[in-house]
């Protein structure tokens, strides 16, 4: 059993999600329907995209404390510029992705600690978002709204989107050649450099990918909520880190799993719904989310015992 779980690292996140889903269906059988499932996982789509963004950064052994602020900014741009002047909106969103890539290159070139630079950038993104949208408002572009609320036959949009996100990220990062090199930067940047790869460009690429997924997360969020404000996604920073870890990713060594990250994001979203079905006092909702996080990680420890004697150091 333990060998099975440690061989297929994706199993544990998958089993956690399945157990939670079964428990939710048991508590509230009416969610076991097309619309029920869609409601349960609706808000998971932007979180899943933000989690993939965080994963791209953790892949190269950095951590991004600005994901929440960046997604909020992307949401504000989507709800204002992209809606009013599509051409300008696309240009701004593209330049945001480019800014992320530049940030990665600068962090690598000047050997700056990513945790601090992204911390500083979170102020910058937050300020720009306030600048663009001083008061909550804006509107979702029509095509985005209809895409996010479309009703494909048989399977709800939230599930389709999650599967597409997981598949694209898997192809990009696990199956493709460049994805393997990117994970190699997290594993051992020096040996990748010795093999003749320009590490600075690879880091810029990893950060650029993170920026791209962050922008998509902001767009998806606006498609669902139809408006934005500068603080709309601030909690995504912590959610995305938790999602990557829940999905079997690690802080070091480029050990990440895109499919796991999407599952982690779905689990976190479902945990919130599950807890409200438990009729748990709202006081304890966040606490119980923390407890679920701890329990899943405890299960991982039981099944995939790693022989790290430093215990907890990342």
């Amino acid at each position: 059993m333990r060998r099975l779980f440690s061989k297929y690292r994706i199993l544990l996140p998958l089993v956690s999600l399945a157990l939670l889903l079964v428990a939710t269906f048991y508590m509230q059988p009416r969610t076991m329907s097309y619309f029920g499932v869609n409601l349960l996982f609706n808000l998971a789509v932007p979180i899943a995209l933000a989690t993939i963004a965080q994963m791209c950064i953790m892949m190269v052994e950095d951590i991004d404390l600005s994901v929440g602020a960046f997604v909020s900014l992307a949401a504000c741009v989507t709800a204002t510029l992209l809606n009013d002047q599509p051409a300008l909106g696309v240009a701004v969103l593209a330049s945001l992705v480019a800014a992320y890539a530049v940030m990665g290159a600068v962090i690598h070139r000047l050997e700056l600690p990513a945790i601090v630079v992204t911390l500083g950038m979170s102020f910058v993104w937050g300020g720009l978002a306030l600048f663009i949208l001083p008061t909550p408002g804006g509107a979702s572009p029509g095509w985005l709204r209809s895409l996010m609320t479309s009703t494909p036959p048989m399977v709800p949009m939230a599930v389709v989107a999650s599967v597409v996100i997981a598949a694209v990220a898997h192809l990009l990062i696990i199956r493709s050649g460049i994805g393997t090199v990117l994970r190699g930067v997290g594993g051992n940047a020096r040996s990748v450099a010795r093999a003749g790869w320009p590490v600075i460009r690879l880091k810029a690429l990893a950060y650029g990918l993170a920026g791209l997924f962050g922008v998509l997360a902001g767009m998806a969020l606006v498609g669902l909520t139809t408006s934005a404000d500068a603080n709309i996604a601030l909690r995504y920073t912590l959610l995305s880190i938790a999602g990557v870890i829940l999905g079997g990713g690690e802080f070091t060594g480029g050990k990440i799993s895109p499919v796991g990250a999407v599952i982690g994001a779905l689990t976190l979203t479902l945990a919130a719904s599950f807890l409200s079905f438990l009729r748990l006092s709202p006081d304890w909702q966040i606490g119980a989310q923390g407890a679920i996080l701890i329990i899943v990680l405890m299960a991982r420890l039981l099944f995939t015992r790693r022989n790290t004697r430093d215990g907890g150091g990342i």
Partner: protein
Amino acid sequence: MSTLVSRPWIWSWLAAGGAFLLTMLLTDGRGAGELAYAALSFGAFAAIVGLGQMMVITLGPGNVDLSIPAVMTLSGTLALKAMGSVPGTELWGLGVAVAVGLGAGGANFALIYLLRLPPIIATLAASLVYQSVAIWSNRGLRVRPPEALADFATGRALGIPNVALVGLVLAVVIWVALERSIWGRWLLASGQNMRAARLAGVPVQMVRAVTYLAVSVLAAVAGYLLASFSGGASLNMGQEYLLMSIAVVVIGGTSIAGGNSNVPGVWGGALFMFLVVSMLNSYGFGAGVRLVLTGSIIIGIVIVASTRRARP
């Protein structure tokens, strides 16, 4: 002079001084005393939690305490509830705050050590639980601190705010502990190379345990003071201190890679974080521009401090 420039903490103090002078330039020197007083008062809270975060970051890569805001909120809430505005209960309230700190720190370290969770995740998950306990015990009530405690938290001695004096005493204690005690040497050694430290006989896990207890106790004391200072605990009182605690440590010149801490820099960073906001305020910038400039200045200082420092 060259030794002064090579001190990593000098940059945070220069930046704080620069922000102070630029504000004074605008007001032609009026209100200098008031500005300095406000900076010391508000900077004290950031400095106290920053000192704790500094010790954790010194433990090495990956060690960050994300539960500081929740511990502040929980200790402020429980301490004020325990005191119930009754005069003479101030020390009992402080005891409750310290107990909250010890409990939270112990729980954090148990998750890190027993469950082998990365500290970022362990303190993040635990902070959600602490926040919940605070919400449950708070119930939207705002208990006022006892009169004497409120007077102490907002009062001054020798022209310096009392909270700043507390922060200065704590800074000196921690500075002595780090520079002059065996425990401080152990902490630095563990942060530089945990494996080598363990092989050299340093009780690494004990050092980590004490550090995680210390950061939570400091956060709890800061929460107790902040709640007394602002006339009651509120559920979001710790919010801004998550990023703040990390920012003041890094601006202060402590190496994010660990094994190298810097006490004077934390105070410099804390003063700077307050002064830069008030400077941008007095120049009449809007909230958006102010945030962008704050972020750019933080990154600028980190770049200057890290490129000036001799690389190993």
